[in-house]
């Protein structure tokens, strides 16, 4: 087992997450893709922490998991607010503003 294995797994998940954000229109699925991105970053942080034998990465993962949870709460609250006014959950239906 080497660091490279974990980094490859991490960047594959990162790529899938970015692709999800860019390609999907359903906002909930976009939020899930963002979670994939944060998880891929956590894998690389934890792997670096293990192979560098330094604690920073592990602590960073704990804090980043917590921040991600807070972010999801806010994101879904905004989504509910949008849904109440627009009844829309797809990105390209959000076309109130142009220019």
């Amino acid at each position, binding site marked *: 087992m080497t660091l490279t294995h974990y980094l490859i797994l991490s960047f594959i998940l990162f790529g899938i997450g970015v692709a999800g954000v860019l390609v999907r229109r359903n906002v909930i699925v976009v939020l899930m893709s963002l979670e994939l991105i944060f998880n891929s970053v956590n894998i690389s942080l934890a792997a670096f922490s293990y192979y560098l034998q330094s604690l920073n990465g592990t602590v960073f993962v704990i804090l980043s998991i917590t921040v991600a*949870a807070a972010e999801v709460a806010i994101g879904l609250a905004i989504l509910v607010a949008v849904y109440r006014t627009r009844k829309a959950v797809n990105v390209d239906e959000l076309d109130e503003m142009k220019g």
Partner: protein
Amino acid sequence: MFEQFFFYIFATVAIVSAICVISVRNPVHSAVFLIVCLLQVAAIFVLLRSPFLAAAQVFIYVGAVMVLFLFAVMVLDMGKAHWKEHLHGQSAPAAVLAGILFILLGYMALKGRMTAPLGTYNEAALVKNTEVVGRALFTKYIFPFEVVSVILLLALVGAIALVMREKRP
């Protein structure tokens, strides 16, 4: 040897379920696949000798975040109409962009070498992983830890402010 075998199982399941998350039509199915993927990530944390991270991952992500997602899917009451989602008009350039990013990242990540001096968080410390992490959180990392507690309070207040206000006259 054993470890490698398990790593490949976890990694394969994680990647396949991640692809399913972004490709299935029904958001509820996406959420279920995301749970599978997050559980594999927790298992990867165990392989990296960080049981505390694995526990936090299961509790916070699978326990709290995913329940929130499923609640949102239900509250927003996405009928079957919303499942028939077509891909963006710009999906082709977006996919090309993601592909280029992916290849570039992979190339650079593979070429990189660790040059930094190793720290003291070695096998002996890893045995007491949870204790060491807890100690660090409340000494060296107390400042970001406190800031994160403010972030959680903000998320609570903010979510309530956005969602509950409509009820008032």
